[in-house]
Each structure stands twice: as C-alpha cells, then as structure tokens.
C-alpha cells in the first residue's frame, strides 16, 4: 500500500523525465520496427500510383510548425512517390503559415532527385514537373474557383511568375485535369475540400491528418468521400514502407525511425494509466 501511495504522489516532472528518456533512447539507439500497412494508406498509395500521365496531383500543404512532425513525413513521402512516377504536381497552401514549410518540402525532394539526375529529362524542373501555386485567401476562393480555372484563381505563383506562362499550366485548366487532391492538414480542411470541391466538381480527395483528428475523419473514409487516409506518424511510416517495398525508394524514413519511440512511450502511458487506476480503487476501498 505504501508503494501505491508513493506512486500516486510522484511529481509530474518525474513523469515528464521518464517519458523524455523513453522517447530519446530509441532515437539514439535505433531498432527498426516492422511496419504493417493498413488499407486506408494502401488505398491512397495506389490512388497516387495510378494517376494518369496527362493528369496532375494537387497537394494542399496545410500544416504548421505545431503539426509539422506528424504531417511533413507524409508530404515528403507523397512528393517522392509522385516524382518517382513522373506525376505532375500542383502545390498550394490555404493559409499563410504553411507556405514556408511547403516550399521547404518541395526544395528538399527536388534537390534529392536532381542530385541523382543525369539528364534534363531525369530532373525535376519547376514549371514543367511541378508548380507551387502559393496562397490565395480566403480558402473558399481556391476550393470553388479552381473548379472553373486554376490560373484565374492563382494569377501568379509563389515566386511571382504568371501562372499562364508556365509550361505545365498551359495543359491544366481546372479540376477536370486533376485526378486526385491530397490535403495534409492538422485541422478540418480536408473535410472542407470534400464539401466544396468534391461535392460540386467531383474531384477525388485524399487526406493526411494528425492523430488527434483521426476519429473525426474515419467516417469520411468509410463513406468513400476520402479516397485514402494517412493518420499521424504511424500512417506516414506506412506510406514510407509502401514506397520502399513497391517502388524501391530508399530514402531517409523519418516517420519509421520514430516508431520505436512511439511504441515505448505508449507502453509507459499504459503503465501510468494502470497504476493510476489501481491507486484510485485502492484509495476508494480504504475510504
């Protein structure tokens, strides 16, 4: 009983310290974990993989620094997938803060490919293979406006170029030229894409969300409104696994490297919850 009393009085800072140690150790001493790919991620992977040559993938990067660790690995993996398959990509953000993170993700992946490229055709070239449309507020304007004309909504891209002068945009008019739109967001933006872009124009929507919002998003997957869904770091690790297994893309797997830390942290949390509950029932019986 004394142990229970002591455990119930443990300073919260000790708990933080235990969690920090449990998370840091697996990062310092990596031990690869097998990643089991679940159907929601698999569906999204194949939806990207089977995009037709003449169609584009639209990617909405809407994560901010506070959700970056969960959503950025998804963005990197999907960009790697698209560029590997030579799928044309249009990137946009509906809010200001994600713009810098979206640019950084594109720069990183294009550098990765261009370092290995031997010819111009192998390279990933801005304007030919992808375009960063940037930001156009309020969110409703691009969501509805791109159904009519993308270049009318985004008259200039993130870098200030006139979009209608870019080679890729000469072939792309509106959602009819896009096969899939993937929204990576820590908020309810993917549902807004469904409500406005999918309902009205019929474009397929895929989503990448933080684990916190997962339970809100699963109903949209079950109804088929989402073509696929990536949830949190675990989902990103599943996409990385698919990329490596199916397309032989061997790059840094940031999300997969984090899985041991997540697993051990969860085990510690479960232990804390069990100890807390035992303590509660023991104290209640004493009263």
């Amino acid at each position: 009983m004394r142990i229970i009393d002591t455990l119930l009085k443990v300073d919260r800072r000790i708990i933080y310290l235990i969690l920090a140690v449990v998370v840091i150790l697996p990062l310092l001493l990596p031990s690869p974990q097998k990643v089991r790919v679940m159907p929601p991620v698999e569906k999204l992977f194949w939806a990207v993989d089977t995009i037709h040559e003449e169609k584009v993938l639209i990617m909405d990067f809407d994560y901010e620094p506070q959700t970056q660790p969960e959503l950025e690995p998804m963005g990197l993996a999907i960009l790697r997938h698209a560029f590997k398959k030579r799928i044309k990509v249009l990137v946009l953000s509906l809010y200001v803060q994600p713009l810098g993170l979206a640019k950084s993700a594109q720069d990183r992946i294009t550098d990765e490919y261009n370092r290995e490229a031997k010819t111009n055709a192998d390279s990933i070239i801005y304007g030919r293979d992808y375009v960063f449309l940037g930001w156009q507020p309020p969110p409703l304007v691009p969501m509805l406006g791109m159904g009519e004309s993308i270049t009318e909504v985004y008259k200039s891209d993130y870098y200030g170029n006139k979009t209608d002068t870019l080679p890729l945009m000469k072939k792309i008019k509106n959602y009819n030229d896009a096969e899939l739109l993937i929204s990576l967001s820590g908020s309810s933006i993917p549902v807004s894409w469904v409500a406005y872009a999918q309902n009205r124009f019929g474009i397929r929507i895929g989503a990448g969300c933080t684990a916190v919002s997962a339970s809100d998003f699963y109903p949209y997957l079950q109804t088929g409104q989402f073509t696929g869904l990536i949830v949190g770091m675990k989902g990103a690790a599943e996409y990385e696994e698919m990329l490596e297994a199916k397309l032989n893309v061997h790059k840094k797997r940031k999300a997969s490297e984090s899985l041991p830390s997540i697993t051990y942290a969860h085990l510690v949390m479960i232990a804390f919850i069990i100890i807390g509950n035992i303590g509660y029932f023991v104290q209640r019986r004493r009263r």
Partner: protein
Amino acid sequence: MNLSTEPWIWIGAFLSLSIFSFLYKDNPFYKFAEHVFVGVANGYAVTFYWHRILVPALFDPLFGQGKLLYIIPFVVGALYFTRFIPKVSWLVRIPIGISIGYYTGASIPAGIQANIIKQIQGTVLTPENFKAWHAGEMGIVWSIILFIGVLCTLSYFYFSKEQKGVLKVSSRIGIIFIMIGFGAAFGYTVMARISLLIGRLQFLLGPWLGVIR
C-alpha cells in the same frame, strides 16, 4: 557529437528548450519564447497579407490602374475600422453581414451534402457499404455494428422523452459507443502529442547536436 554552426539552428534550439522549460515551471525564458512566437507569426501573416493580397489585388488596380469598381470592396473593407469610432461603429455590421451571408450561403448546402446526406448513406446497410470496410464477409458485421452504434448514440441525445423502456436500453448502449469513441480519441491524442515531442527531439538531437543522422 557534431554541433551545428548554423546560427538559425541555435536560435531554434534555444527557443525549443525555452518552451520545454515550462514543464519544470513557468519562467522568463518560456515567456520570452512564447511572445517571440506570437509576434513572429503575426508579423509574418500581416506582411504576407499586405504584399500578396492588399497591394496586388486592391491597391494596385484601384490606385495604380484606376479601376474604379475596386472602390466598392475598398470601402466595404474599410468599414471594419469604424468599430474604433463610437458614433458610426454600427457601420461595422455591413462587412460582417456580407461575410456571414456569403459563407452561410456557400456552406449550408455543401455541409448538408457532405456531412449529413453522405454520412446517412454510409450508415445504410447496402452491399457497397459492406465492401467499404475491406474486411470480406466481416464487412456485414461491421456495417451492422455501425448501424446499431449510430442509432443508439442518437437515441442517447434524444431529450424530448424520458429515457425509460426501449429508449433507456438504446441510450445505455449508445453510452458504450460514445465511451469507446472517447477512448479511441484519447489514444490518438497521446500518439499525436508524443509525435510532436519526437519531432522536436529529432531536431535537437539531429541538426543541433548532431548526435543522430
């Protein structure tokens, strides 16, 4: 160990550690980092709005190219500032009314279609919905569980009649579904928060300290 020589990495590391210091107790470093974050985020947003929206989409066409029609959005937008003049502060209702009207008109039909009609369709027991689970024959079972769960949960929130008899049974089953939902949401929340911690630690141990690749 391969410490970074990049000043921005050091600033990022200092601000991250300052925020983490709140876990010990509130302190000036935490307050400093918090204020820097709020200030930088707002400054960034205001600058972007000015250079990417107000100047190219309003001021340039109106004052540079003389497109007089742009005077309408200019005046309507400017009415937001009447809030600071007590005598005419009522004028702020005009832009607010326009915004509410626009967004309500756009969102009601879209919201009903995406969040109500499609979700009801997804609950109906049809072969298409059985397949959506990707669980083979078990798809029927999951669809039935979903069907029961939705009805029972809705009955829990039916307050126009005293919950006794059949309604009591269904609402009790509804509570079980709600609790399972809360449990799943809590589990996911733990995963999300740990992921954020991992993200910061990867930054501190990687680009800053150079301990991990």
